[in-house]
């Protein structure tokens, strides 16, 4: 340093800096259970991605002579009522179950975030209007709304996912609105507003990055719920259609076999759903706790 002295300048802490921004804090927040949940989700995603490579059989083609086989060398987890390999169906089922939920979560997060930001930015009447709209959506039970949409637009994964996304928007929007509102009152947002910067710039540059953690944790929690609801719709025959492999559908189709003494299909698919949902919930709650922008 030069001989020049700067009065009133506290020394800049250089050492403290970049650590906080690394992933170490996230791992600490997740805890051992959270890390396990992340590993489980990672394995599920891997299974879904690699299903065509690692699945021993075609999930849609069975053999009448191989019905209800017990787990063994040929079929690691046995076969279902149509003689299809259960392991292969579970692996492929991960694809539909995960992508369906992902679509729901993405659409709900996008819709909820936009509504929350619009409501907080404009405030006043716009905020009140958005509030009314959310109240209206809240009044509908999720599944009922989904059944309504499916009844109008026909069965299928896309319709079911879009309908559920609409049903999830109010949960996401409500929490994000309160978070964004608190952020909006902070001086840095006002300082940016003072410069006459546009609402898009201020919300995009300042508000959105600061509510991103809540969006993410909310999405993680919603993911679990979306899997359950999608499985329920498939179970009711309104979502994914046979012969596509899907966990919810497998639970449903396993019912008859269950009565005949072959519980394998329903139990395995049900276990997959439970494990996946639990993993997503743990991640969401560990990351965001009660402040998460998801269903409560």
């Amino acid at each position: 340093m030069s001989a020049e002295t700067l009065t009133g300048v506290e020394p800049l802490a250089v050492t403290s800096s970049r650590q906080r921004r690394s992933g170490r804090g996230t791992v600490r927040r997740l805890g051992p259970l959270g890390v396990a949940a992340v590993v489980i989700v990672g394995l599920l995603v891997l299974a879904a991605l690699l299903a065509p490579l690692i699945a021993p059989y075609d999930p849609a083609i069975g053999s009448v002579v191989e019905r209800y086989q017990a787990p063994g060398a040929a079929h690691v987890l046995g076969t279902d009522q149509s003689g299809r390999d259960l392991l292969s169906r579970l692996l492929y089922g991960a694809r539909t179950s995960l992508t369906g939920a992902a679509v729901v979560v993405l659409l709900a997060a996008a819709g909820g975030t936009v509504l929350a930001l619009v409501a907080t930015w404009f405030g006043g009447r716009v905020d009140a209007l958005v509030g009314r709209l959310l109240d209206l959506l809240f009044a509908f039970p999720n599944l009922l709304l989904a059944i309504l949409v499916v009844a109008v637009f026909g069965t299928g994964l896309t319709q079911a996912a879009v309908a559920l996304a609409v049903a999830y928007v109010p949960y996401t929007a409500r929490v994000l609105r309160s978070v964004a509102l608190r952020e909006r009152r902070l001086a840095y947002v006002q300082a940016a507003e003072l410069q006459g910067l546009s609402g898009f710039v201020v919300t995009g540059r300042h508000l959105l990055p600061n509510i991103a953690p809540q969006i993410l944790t909310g999405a993680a929690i919603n993911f679990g719920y979306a899997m359950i609801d999608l499985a329920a719709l498939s179970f009711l025959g309104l979502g994914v259609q046979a012969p596509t492999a899907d966990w919810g559908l497998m639970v449903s189709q396993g019912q008859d076999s269950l009565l005949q003494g072959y519980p394998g299909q329903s139990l395995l698919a049900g276990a997959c759903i439970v494990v996946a949902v639990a993993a997503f919930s743990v991640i969401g709650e560990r990351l965001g706790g009660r402040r998460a922008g998801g269903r409560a």
Partner: protein
Amino acid sequence: MSGTTGNVIEITGLSKRFTTGRGGQRRSVDALVDVTLTVADGSCLAVVGESGSGKTTLARILVGLEGADAGQVVLAGRPVAQRPRRAERRARARDIQMVFQDPNGSLNRRRTAGSAISEVLTAHHRVRGAELRRRVDDLLDQVGLLPAHARALPGELSGGQRQRVAIARALAAEPRVLVLDEAVAALDVSVQAQVLNLLAELRRVRRLTYLFITHDLSVVRQVSEQVVVMRRGEIIERGSTERVLDQPQHPYTMLLRDSAPRPGWRPRRALGRGEPRAEDMEAAR
């Protein structure tokens, strides 16, 4: 210069009412009632009053964050709109800037100090690249910070440093008027003194006009020539700082002055250290 008057701020009959609740619970609060004041170019006017007296509302209307219900504001010789739109605010921001109270919330915690300053620079001036960086460093230097501070996140800075960055950000627009809304209230006394010295220096060098909003009378004497006292949205007393603080006319001003800590002042409920209290001595007997 602003017209013939030499006043950079002229406020006439400014009123603002806030309404909360609806239906039967509808209540309204008069934040400003017929406020009239002028601030001479290059001077510092202190606005004092307790919380809820309307001083922050006055500041927010002045910078365009809030609209007024009635009255007129003339800024640097130009009348400003009552319900400011974006373009209007942008133009006004080059005349008047604000430094906010909260040193934690006044900077975006995910963006560096440098980006807070360059955001304002690029909003008002066509600067980029090396020129932008040079001007950020220059502004940091003016508020007594180092170029290295530009890369620091708010969490890595102390309260005083953050407030310096907020001052640099306000200066980036090259305004004539700085509204300081409790700008030193959240800082501890020694840091407060440093920031006050910095503000005095900046005013001298940049020929700035200050509207200094505070509840702290001890600060007022240090910074301002003129003072207005506000209560429930009204100006109840005004005059030179010396006169108002030494010979207050209004009972409320006297009360304000008497409730401020000063040498010899002793908080009544604090336990005396070292010497036993009379009650304790009674009890021990």
